[in-house]
């Protein structure tokens, strides 16, 4: 891989700052500036947190439903099955993130191997 490939184009880095760094960082800086005086349990923040969680949930679904790159080589049913199996193990192990991730991965790899 060449140096040019590793760096990529400058346009993409500008997009990173405009679409990623600034919209994200603004909230931390507001927190630094206006620290104090906001109630963590306020109704507005409950709604904001729910929307933020649901957006993240949508992204998780997007990666599984419309997978990028190599993940697209895994059949639909196997991807959904892997997430389902991981979820079952996660719940059975009293919410162990590690056990859930390992179970999902093993399910996917075993399925791939079995399907040939």
């Amino acid at each position: 891989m060449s140096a040019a490939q590793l760096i990529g184009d400058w346009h993409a880095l500008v997009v990173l700052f405009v679409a990623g760094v600034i919209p994200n960082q603004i909230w931390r800086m507001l927190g630094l500036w206006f620290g104090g005086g906001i109630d963590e349990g306020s109704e507005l923040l409950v709604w904001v947190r729910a929307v933020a969680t649901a957006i993240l949930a949508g992204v998780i679904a997007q990666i599984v439903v419309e997978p990028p790159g190599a993940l697209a080589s895994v059949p639909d049913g196997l991807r959904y099955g892997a997430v389902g199996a991981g979820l079952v193990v996660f719940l059975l192990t009293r919410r162990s993130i590690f056990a859930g991730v390992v179970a999902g991965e093993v399910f996917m790899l075993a399925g791939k191997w079995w399907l040939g």
Partner: protein
Amino acid sequence: MALPPLDSPQWQSPWHAFVWGVRSITQTILTLVLFATYLGIGALAHDSHFSLVWALCSTLFVWAGPAQIILITTLGSGATVIQSAIAVTVSAIRLFPMVVSVLPLMRTPTTKRRELFFAAHLTAVTLWVECHRFLPQVPRERRIAFVNGLGFGLVSVCLTANTIGYFLAANLTQTLGAAILLLTPLSFLFSTARNSREIADVVALALGVLLYPLAAKMNSGLDILVSGLAAGTIAYGVHWWREVRS
């Protein structure tokens, strides 16, 4: 490894406190979860056609896993800069209450705002959780140095994981590449589920996953925002209805 007692001479220099912060990353399972997550983000960046430097800059300057995968996934699937920026900023709002609640733990009467800049930048869910766990064991006047060290350690782990994930995605067989990409949804789904204590969080997570495929059928380019706003607002409605009834 246990931290030295509060009155130990080990805490006399800020530099020592920084090193204790860096070493504390070995004391938490969340470091392993972060490693797996950022391995996945590195692979995701590769397969969505971003450069390695781009992926590392996103970790260094964004430093929020959810925002990074939202950014990579939306830009990678053809969203405009504005659409991505909106999705990222909504996901980042939660950082505001986190920063507001974590900074008082390290502030002293003489602390200047600029001394807290790096601590504010490093604040994300992992650091927020660990601050509540570690800081009571750290003398107040050394807490900023300790948190800077802890954050520095976690960022280093994640940059390493990004690089490994990026090259693995470029060189592995298709099946193993897929396994690394699958780390991202799995680790985010379970770590978010683990942090969901209130009914609103659980409903938002479950409905957010289920509504996305429906929203995607509308093909508006704003799918994530549409399903997120709808699922989040319904979840808030459930929370509100329970409050009113009780």
